[in-house]
């Protein structure tokens, strides 16, 4: 099937990133969210495009074109008009299953479903829907518009057609879909949360402060962002959620550092609250240590 119109369910960082990446490559995107924060999703995508414009990465007319391709709705009936369905909601099994069942009813039978879940098994999700052979896992890695790789997972019943559709879609977005075996937790989230957790322990034990840990790890491994900024941009609540999911399966290897739990409890969630391990400005830019102190 020729794919032109893509539904993205979930307007968090991952969902917005997928929506922006797809619209940038010419797809019409319908962004669905039933959460309260969904309404400003398009304006947050506009902010993301403004940051690219400020860095000369796109032009003003390209920005308008991309925004013109994205619409937002809370009405699941709109799913009847889409050619591809992508779920990018928070990894809560019961919510995800409920949304997938609803989408299964509204989408045309030939529409392939993609789950972008970082920790849930495709086979478990597939049991909830009639089109279990049409569900494939494709985990995009934030920032979605910049990372050139995605993790592709085949469930027990996933058809070759669904896999090919996901691979073609990823390729159009300029990403290589690397196929991995199904497991609880994919390659990037599993390795990333361990690194974030260890960095949190280093800070919690007073070995060095957040900025020193971030600088050492970022520079020594040639990263664009260190683990603490990555955690802040993902959202510390999401990181904690991933760790808890992984801890259920793998045990103490994924036991969250107490500092991470404390920050989430205090509502110190990262970029979205301007403060996580590090501090951020109104336009989501990382503040230096001195600037962060002034903000405090």
């Amino acid at each position, binding site marked *: 099937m020729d794919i032109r119109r893509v539904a993205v369910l979930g307007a968090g960082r991952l969902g917005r990133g997928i929506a922006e990446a797809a619209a940038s490559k*010419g797809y019409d995107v319908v962004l669905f969210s039933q959460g309260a924060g969904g309404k400003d999703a398009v304006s947050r995508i506009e902010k993301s495009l403004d940051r690219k414009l400020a*860095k*000369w*990465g*796109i*032009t003003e007319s390209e920005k308008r074109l991309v925004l013109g391709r994205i619409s937002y709705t809370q009405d699941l009936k709109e799913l009847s008009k889409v050619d591809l369905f992508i779920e990018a909601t928070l990894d809560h099994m019961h919510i995800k299953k409920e949304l997938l069942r609803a989408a299964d009813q509204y989408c045309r039978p030939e529409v392939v479903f993609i789950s972008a879940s970082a920790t849930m098994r495709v086979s478990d999700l597939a049991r909830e829907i009639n089109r279990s052979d049409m569900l494939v896992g494709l985990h995009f890695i934030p920032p979605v518009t910049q990372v050139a790789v995605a993790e592709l997972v085949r469930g027990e019943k996933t058809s070759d057609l669904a896999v090919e559709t996901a691979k073609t879609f990823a390729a159009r977005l300029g990403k290589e879909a690397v196929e991995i075996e199904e497991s609880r937790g994919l390659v990037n989230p599993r390795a990333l949360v361990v690194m974030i957790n260890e960095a949190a322990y280093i800070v919690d034990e007073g070995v060095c402060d957040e900025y020193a840990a971030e600088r050492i790890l970022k520079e020594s491994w040639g990263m664009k962002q260190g683990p603490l900024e990555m955690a802040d941009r993902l959202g510390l609540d999401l990181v904690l959620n991933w760790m808890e999911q992984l801890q259920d399966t793998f045990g103490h290897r994924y036991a969250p550092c107490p500092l991470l739990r404390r920050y989430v409890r205090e509502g110190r969630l990262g970029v979205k609250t301007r403060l996580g391990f590090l501090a951020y400005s109104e336009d989501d830019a990382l503040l230096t240590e001195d600037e962060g102190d002034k903000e405090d």
Partner: protein
Amino acid sequence: MNIFVLNCGSSSLKYKLYAMENEQVLAEGRVERIGQENAIITHQSQGKEKVSKTMPILEHTVAIRECLNLLTDPQQGVIKNVSEIDAVGHRVVHGGESFSDSVLIDDRTKEILDSLAELAPLHNPANVMGIRAAEKIMPKTPQVAVFDTAFHSTMPSHAYLYAIPYTIYQRHKVRRYGFHGTSHKYVSQRAAELMGRDIADLKIISCHLGNGASIAAIAGGKSVDTSMGFTPLEGLMMGTRSGDIDPGAIFYIMRKEGLTLHEIDSMLNKHSGLFGIAGVSDMRDIEKGIEEDDKLCKLAFDIYEYRIRKYIGSYIAAMNGVDAIVFTAGIGENTPALRSQLVANLPYLGISINEENNRKRGEDIEISTPDSKVKVFVIPTDEELVIARDTADIVS
């Protein structure tokens, strides 16, 4: 002999049907927004009203079929049947080192063209898509590829090689290719005709100044150097492209601004040139700004003119002389003030401008006075005619 000329972009195509006996355009048109439900076809047959319609056109094959329907339409058309088309000539942007001239397309040609996609990722895949679509609809009609780079294949190695490790050229074919070759070829040949001289005896500098701009040194009818290089980013200042810049400045900017490869590429290609200096990319807006005493518009104009002048000077040195300078394409044809300023700044060439001729538009015209040592022409380019001529030559 009827030749159908196709210029396919990723979401648009332009076409012309020529009767080659008298090089007459029988019909022409364009399709825009291919891939969308509201694609627009505009078509005009000679001596008939222009027609325009909006319809869903989701791929190039459908677009070409619609063009052919219009060409054979009992009311709008100019031919009765598609079989009256003797050959199709395709514009192909990049021929790499494989094609030094236009070529009859076969399976091997398409394989090579596919492999050249990464040298011109915005253009070549769309050009090849047009070739495959036309073949599908007209499987028995010969198809010819005419390359923008081919005219510059005569450049000597000392002109096309960059002074970087030679292994980079051997491994990746990184070298100057040059673009707008079809246009440079057409206007230089036309200038020789207007001078009544054999092009083999002439040294010509042709300035193709459109939104993209390049300049070529043509000695004896052959390109010996040109300002665009491995990509169309090198050389003159353009509408939104920087043209020449110290590569060291690029690394410095990337470090200072924290830019990615994509961002610096986009900055140099889409945010620079006239737009980068003055905030507008259209030369008409620049001229309007100058009238309103906008200093940045004046600065942009002066940089633009100066860089053309530098290239003219260097190509006079490269050829050890010049007989004629030709201006063509949107800015080259329609900006008398630019031509006047350029010539006024080159007094050592002994050129005088006939200002009355300089202000004329839309015709092949000499704008230098009869006593000028170097002749200056404005010649509207006609790339489609060159494609049609090459196609006719190859299939004859």
